[in-house]
């Protein structure tokens, strides 16, 4: 008798569970990923990064590096091999398939890294080319000849005046070639020798003052190439840094870099805001790839490299970078084919077995 309840219970429950359970229960090959842990090249990071960051002597550095870490490199490379092998079945993408997913393939090349910083700047008067015109004596202005905006040659009369004491007539003359940018006199006005009657500025050269934030101060030097652009104004101009201020502004805590900008057509106007892109370094590198080629995979910068029929995820060591390129110090040799864009799909493929089967609880 006792068997009957048991039977009923078993029958009811042998099956049981979710009614609408979808049948396609993925049973993924989790094993492959367990192997990852051992092969992953941790040794790469040790002590490389800092050495590189502020290195000034590139060659010396490279020698040190390669000599000291040869053993590790080999170990690391072996690590990659294992890594690659375990993924073999998954990463045999054809070039067309890769392209369909927006991928691009390139071959590793030498290149030059242009390190640049982009900073706001302001066009100002060249203060070395500004003349203040003042009367020699206290005087009454009898006639004003120059108006704002007039182009003036050196020695040209700007106004006629009469000394208040001696009643001698004399004229106020420009000291330089330039444009009258300020006029502080009116006919009949009395001026003392301290008063500035006119300001004449030579606009053929201007200053571009660039504020340097603390991090940039040590990097910006005189002679560095700089490109000046402005949103609504003249075409961009290439120039060089002509002056870096020895002091930091106490108010804003910014440094100052200055460009003497030639302004033949008078297109540039003092007061304009510009953007200055300074090339702070130019470094030739043996292997350079676009930044889009480097993908973060298992917390390592990784490049997908063609090896025979498959793509190998290779942890690489990055060097300098600029806005669109990055130097590869290790992990990719010149001439090798790699995915320069759209490598994400390969990363996704490697992680596929870890995807949860679709629900967010």
């Amino acid at each position, binding site marked *: 008798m006792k068997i009957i309840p048991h039977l009923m219970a078993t029958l009811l429950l042998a099956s049981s569970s979710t009614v609408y359970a979808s049948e396609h229960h993925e049973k993924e090959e989790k094993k492959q990923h367990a192997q990852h842990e051992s092969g992953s090249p941790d040794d790469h990071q040790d002590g490389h990064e800092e050495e590189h960051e502020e290195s000034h002597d590139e060659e010396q550095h490279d020698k040190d590096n390669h000599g000291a870490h040869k053993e590790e490199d080999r170990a690391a490379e072996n690590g990659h091999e294992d890594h690659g092998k375990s993924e073999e079945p998954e990463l045999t993408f054809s070039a067309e398939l890769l392209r369909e997913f927006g991928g691009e393939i390139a071959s590793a090349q030498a290149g030059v890294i242009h390190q640049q910083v982009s900073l706001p700047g302001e066009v100002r008067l060249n203060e070395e080319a500004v003349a203040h015109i003042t009367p020699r004596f206290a005087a009454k202005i009898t006639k004003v000849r120059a108006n704002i905006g007039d182009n003036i040659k050196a020695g040209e009369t700007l106004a006629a005046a009469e000394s208040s004491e001696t009643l001698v007539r004399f004229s106020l003359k420009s000291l330089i070639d330039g444009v009258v940018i300020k006029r502080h006199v009116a006919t009949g006005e009395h001026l003392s020798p301290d008063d500035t009657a006119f300001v004449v500025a030579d606009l053929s050269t201007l200053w571009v003052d660039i504020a340097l934030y603390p991090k940039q101060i040590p990097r910006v030097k005189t002679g560095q190439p700089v490109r000046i652009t402005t949103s609504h104004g003249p075409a961009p101009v290439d120039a060089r840094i002509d002056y870096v201020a020895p002091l930091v502004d106490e108010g804003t805590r910014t440094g100052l870099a200055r460009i003497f900008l030639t302004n033949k057509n008078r297109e540039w106007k003092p007061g304009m805001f510009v953007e200055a892109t300074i090339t702070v370094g130019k470094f030739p590198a043996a292997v350079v790839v676009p930044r889009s080629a480097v993908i973060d995979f298992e917390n390592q910068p990784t490049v997908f490299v063609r090896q025979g029929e498959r793509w190998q995820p290779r942890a690489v060591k990055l060097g300098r970078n600029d806005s669109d390129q990055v130097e590869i110090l290790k992990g990719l040799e010149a001439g090798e084919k790699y995915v320069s864009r759209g490598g994400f799909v390969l*990363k996704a*493929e490697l992680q*596929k077995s870890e995807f949860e089967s679709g629900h967010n609880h």
Partner: protein
Amino acid sequence: MQSIIRFALENRLLVVVLSLATLIGGYFAYRTLPVDAYPDISPSLVQVFVETEGLAPEEVEKYVTYPVESAMNGLPKLDHVRSVSNFGLSVVNIYFEDGTDIYFARQLVGERLQVARESIPDGFGEPVMGPITTGLGQILFYVLEDTSGEYNNTQLREIQDWIVKFNLQTVKGVTEVLSIGGEVKQFQVRVDPDALIRYDVSLPQIKERIEENNANAGAQFIVKNDEEYIVRSVGLATDLASLRNIVVKTIDGTPVYLEQLGELKIGGEIRRGLTTKDGNGEVVVGMVLKLIGSNTSEVINAVKKELATINDNLPKGIEVQPYYDQATLVKAAVSTVINALLQGIILVALVLLAFMGGLRPSLVVALSIPFSVGFTFLAMKFFGISANLMSLGGIAIAIGMMVDGAVVVVENVDRMLRESSPDESRLHIVARACQAVARPILFAISIIIIVFLPLFTLQGVEGATFRPLAYTVAVAMLGSLIFALVVAPVTSLLLMKRPQKQDDKPRKDIISFLMKGYQPMVQLMVARRWIAVTVAGVVLAVGIAVAPFLGSEFVPRLNEGDLLIRATMAPSISLEKAEDTITVFERQLKKAFPEVTQVVSRIGRGEVGAHADPVNNAEIFVSLKPQEEWVSAESLDGLYAAMSKKFENFPGAKFNFTQPIAAAVDELLTGTKAELAAKLFGDDLDVLAKQAQAIEQVMRTVPGAQDVQRDQIGGTPQLRITLNRNAIARYGLNVSDVQKTLSVAVGGSEAGQVFEGIRRFDIYVRLEKKSRDEADVIRQLIIENDAGQRIPLEELANIEEVVGPRQITRENNQRFITIQTNVRERDIGSFVAEADAAIAEQVDLPPGYFLKWGGQFELQQQANKRLMIVVPITLGLVFLMLYANFNSLRNALLIMLNIPLALVGGIVGLWLSGQSLSVPASVGFIALFGIALENGLVLVSYLNELVRDGVPVAEASVRAACSRLRAVIMTAVTTALGLFPLLFASGTGSEVQRPLATVVVGGLVTATLLTLLVLPALYQWFADKPADIGASH
């Protein structure tokens, strides 16, 4: 009981009127019952969503999820609370006990949300409850087709939001319409950071100026010449031009207009989802959700009607096209059962005609079907049970059984009329005949009702699925009982005539034909009991031998006839890349499978309400040609397999082939699909991840573990900006200054709305794209302090790229991570014990971290426990009923012997038809017990009667068997034929009913054979002394 029959017979008119009322009422109840495809198996759940712009999962959890969760603590009838904190979205699922009224639950949650609202910091979002719907509520999805090609995504979405959705929401029974896809129109102020420096303004200032220059105001009224004039000031921005001319600042009398600070454009809101179609890119889609408890087919019809009206009013070239709706499914599911029901009725009626020998008796019996069915519909209406696959299926199952009571009554009346003396009045004969069988009928039907009792104790999904079935079976049987005891006597009296004198010659029908073969067999059995025992033994042995070959499976999948593919991509994928990936998939799908007519994919989530998918998830609706035109596969399963194979190696995405309702319900049912899940609770996500990995490794080593898998909680890259407090202090800034600028500059901020009539669109202030969309640019973001110093962000903070949590899941206020496994070739209990010991030994959990075992195993154990109590009680009750009927332990035991023998037939039936042991099959077994017992009951009652009349046991055995052959065969055949249509049905939903029908039909075969052959043989051993029998009555 006797008095009931007498009363009925005396008040014939009343009975007739009430019966007619039941029939008519039942019909109208059926017409107005809510119709669904399936019983709603969604749990009693209230969802609370909070959208928080731009917050990472950690912050969402801390600022939003936690306050909501903790506010829910201690609610009455609360089962558990589970939450998911995603990027920008917090979802708190509040589960109530099974059967809690959803409006009651929502009211409770609503009250507590007030408290939660106060603890959520300003600007971090408003908690809202999800729509009042269930997993079955997604009744219709449509796509906005633009055939003219003149409208862009923003315009299409505007039409969707302000015309289509607007009108659909007013349809009765629609609780919500959710839009997804396209771009939500927004007035964007894309600020140029250089302009900020140039004019010395800050982003918060811009925001403030926009808000202050965009309002209407009322100023009461003035009286002019005895008339009142309302004073109204109009200053709302109505278009881009009015925004452009907002003056942000005045420098020396020169105004700085908003347009000088950047670009003003109409653009799209930041979105976390979109929809694509046919590999041709984006479309705009709407989803209609129906109110809980409303009639699916009615709502769908109303929505379709409204859509037709809307279509007429849409701009030329735009059309709304439904691409998924449940109407077909509901119709198909219901028609499958209704067909089975009608066919069953016809078959049963035919059997009656054949066996009863006579139209009038057959008619009386057949009347029990409409009466019981009508009675059931009335009860369903009264208790609010919807007509669906399961509830109607219950009626279909009961069709054959409903007539049993009436059969016995009518047969007895027929016999009595035949045998009675002509002097006796018909009324008296009928009363006598009915009273004679009333007791066994009452017991037999009660037993059938009782055996369905365990089904009512099923919980969760099985419970919700099969309870309606158990319910309708029980009610239908109750109806048939009423018919047999009250209506049948009256109708017999009214319809049945005293037969003409022709009884001398034996009736020529199937039974008399069968009798020729049967009689010698039963004589042989009774004479040589060992043959009977051997036969029973052999049959049992066959059953035991076959049983191990049966596979076991979940409930067979209900075929919805619609295909839904769930795609999962890398957790870090961008929406754009996800769109590309899915588009490629759509194209390949259409190319590889010509039977696919249309593909619509939803990536991520649209308006909050039904889905909380992150952007790496996509749901792909596939419309197919009619099955006859398929070329890639014959069946849906075949098509699944072919697609699954074809896309197995699809790069960067995993596909899961399912069906729309199944997927929607899955989403609401939390918990793991694996048999066993270890949940590790604790605070620190890193520690959790690390310990979970250790536990996973230990678990792999335990024998029996298979498919061990741990939740991936990480995988979302973050740009982490850690503020340097010293640096901030040095510049005289607050943390909030930096963060405000950061969130407005990079994330953007709403600054009021532009009204176009009643349509309203946000104004959104944010830096222009190129100044915020790269880590390097964000580093250079300028923060200005009060002294006017301008400091780039990198001076103030440490900025790094790290990998953060994808989402944070919590249960009952604690974070957890799941390690799940299936267990093979050993029982789960011992596995848990061993794994638990191994983990305790090898993994050193820090204080505050603890492991809890759960999963299907837990549910099964609970159900097991419950059934271990309920099943014996049921059997005990059955036994008691039998004992009460016979007043004899032995007789009761003899009848209970039928159970194992009936089991065998069910098992063999499953085996022969290649089906597995599943929940519906188990339900079939339960039904079988009742039916098998009924057979035995009929036979043994009569045996006892004969023995009591002094017939020797051996002779009585043969005579009883022969004279009851008709009744036994008839009840068995009607029951079996009632189920036949279900056995061979191939429509939607038939896959759930088929195993049930197989078991009952198979079991009936063995049970009937054994009742007829073995029972009479064994009776001798179980018979009470005639004296006892005599005494008992």
